[in-house]
């Protein structure tokens, strides 16, 4: 059983990394093999949250996709993007910074890919009007979306998975990760000012073109927009309170999405068609493959190795936290961060059981979110989300931006992305490490 589960896991990972076959196909086939070889029973796969599909993650993702799909129809995202460009008074560097901040804030609440898909068309138009190269803008947005997505529980799938596994709520992420991301954004954009501040110059004619744009014409459906804003506001309020109210985040998101679907008058057939089903099935397949490795004991072996290497104790996991930021960062630049976090989650859970379980007497999420474990989860999140910035294929948002740029006639080579992405990854990982070290191991907040 152990070797069957290991073989399925290793082969699936290898094929996903090689990108020879679509990752959803690989994950689903691997999941089917896990069940067919009886590594997991179908009951484990569909009904056991530790071994099978984490439906909290799936429904949270579906619900947020539904809300965004309906909101996109109002034209509000194009409005915000054009308004942002005008706020920069046509100054190319100011526009770059404003776009970065808007992308980061939007990504904290929306899916990263969705955010870049919404802002990139306007960026291409603005760059054309300004007669500047759109590539630095597009890469900046991909980086900003990956950074901003790290700030909240719902910003990036790894956070949704970590929150669900470790029983951490929206407020936990807001208190622990959002300050780190604000700090990282400030330092990164100061670094960007040094690089781009003086290089981006345009004439008055080009600036005037941006100011002549009319953002008010872009709102397609003001009534629907009003409904969307109310529901989104209530949903975010629900996220802020879900821990206290005793709801899972998926419950809050589903309540928001289904209410919006009910009052929007949109055709559910069309709205549901636009949900990214391949991504969701990729998640389901992965959960089952990794559940197989948990049950067969492979993850247990890994967690023993990690304990032997980093010597975590019930009082401090300093070395583990520091190693985790770098290990996750490097791994996520190479492997998709979703399978990476899906693997690390049960590993850290087993580690917590071995190191903290016997002395604290706690189990499940209460054990996983023990104060000694917390910095390790934050290290995993920061590393996994920020590491994706390293290469053109490190995160889905990067892949999308490269694709859109090529379609617009500005191909971005792997090396060119690396030139921007690698230094930013290095910088943000160093800041993350310093943040975790200072906050949890020096100041003890």
């Amino acid at each position, binding site marked *: 059983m152990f070797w069957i589960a290991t073989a399925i896991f290793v082969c699936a990972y290898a094929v996903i990394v090689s990108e020879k076959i679509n990752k959803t196909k690989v994950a689903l086939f691997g999941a089917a093999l896990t069940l067919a070889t009886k590594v997991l029973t179908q009951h484990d796969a569909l009904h056991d949250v530790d071994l099978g599909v984490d439906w909290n993650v799936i429904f949270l993702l579906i619900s947020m996709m539904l809300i965004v799909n309906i909101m996109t129809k109002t034209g509000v995202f194009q409005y915000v993007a054009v308004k942002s460009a005008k706020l920069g008074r046509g100054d190319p560097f100011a526009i770059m910074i404003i776009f970065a901040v808007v992308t980061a804030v939007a990504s904290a609440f929306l899916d990263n890919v969705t955010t870049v898909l919404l802002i*990139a*068309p306007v960026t291409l138009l603005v760059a054309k009007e300004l007669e500047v190269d759109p590539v630095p803008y597009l890469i900046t947005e991909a980086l900003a979306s990956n950074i901003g997505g790290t700030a909240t529980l719902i910003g990036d799938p790894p956070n949704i998975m970590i929150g669900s596994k470790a029983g951490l709520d929206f407020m936990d992420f807001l208190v622990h990760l959002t300050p780190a991301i604000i700090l990282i954004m400030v330092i990164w954009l100061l670094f960007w000012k040094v690089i781009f501040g003086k290089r981006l110059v345009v004439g008055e004619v080009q600036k005037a073109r941006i100011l002549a744009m009319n953002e008010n014409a872009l709102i397609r459906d003001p009534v629907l927009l009003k409904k969307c804003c109310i529901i989104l506001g209530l949903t975010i309020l629900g996220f802020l309170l879900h821990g206290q109210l005793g709801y899972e985040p998926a419950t809050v998101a589903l309540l928001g999405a289904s209410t919006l679907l009910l009052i929007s008058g949109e055709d559910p057939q069309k709205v549901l068609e636009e949900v990214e089903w391949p991504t969701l099935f990729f998640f389901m397949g992965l959960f089952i493959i990794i559940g197989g490795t948990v049950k067969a004991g492979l993850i247990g072996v890994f967690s023993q190795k990690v304990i032997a290497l980093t010597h975590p104790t019930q009082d401090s996991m300093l070395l583990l936290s520091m190693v985790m930021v770098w290990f996750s960062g490097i791994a996520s630049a190479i492997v998709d961060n979703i399978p990476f976090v899906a693997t690390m989650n049960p590993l850290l859970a087993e580690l917590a059981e071995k190191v903290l379980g016997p002395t604290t007497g706690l189990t499940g999420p209460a054990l996983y979110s023990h104060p000694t474990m917390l910095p390790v989860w934050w290290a995993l999140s920061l590393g996994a989300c920020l590491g994706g910035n390293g290469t053109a294929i490190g995160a889905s948002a990067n892949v999308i931006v490269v694709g859109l740029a090529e379609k617009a006639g500005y191909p971005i080579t792997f090396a060119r992305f690396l030139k921007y992405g690698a230094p930013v990854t290095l910088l943000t990982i160093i800041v993350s490490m310093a943040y975790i070290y200072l906050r949890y191991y020096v100041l003890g907040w």
Partner: protein
Amino acid sequence: MRIRHMMRTKLAIVGPDVTFAELLRTYRDMDSRLVYVVDATRHLLGVISSYDLLRTMLPFYLDSNLAKALPDDDAVILQAFEACQNRTAGEIMTREFVAVHPDDTFLEAEALIAEHGISVLPVLEADGQLVGAVSRRAILNALAAQCGFNSEA
């Protein structure tokens, strides 16, 4: 009735190296729906419709909503034209086209047009040489004639 007897043989034909600017002129000066891109031996390489021309001129990211934000002046259009005026017919053309043979029946052409929702079918010999085109209108006229509605002219 065979296609051979109803196809038009006077077609707008260009080589693959013709530029967007020249294509725009060709399109303006003719009454056919398609421009046919052929090689030196008149083998059909691709077709260009008014849709292809408009799609080339407007960048993909400028959707109907985003276009509303732009001021209504010639500068935007001229800028778009300048960006693509040197693109060639070979780059713009649609390579996947549905065609018929001169000896195919008019019913086959009618079914093809209905299936694909297209307006004109190029007529090709077995070796791919372009010999004519049959339009939706020509088929409709033939249909009307068969049903007993003779042209007044």
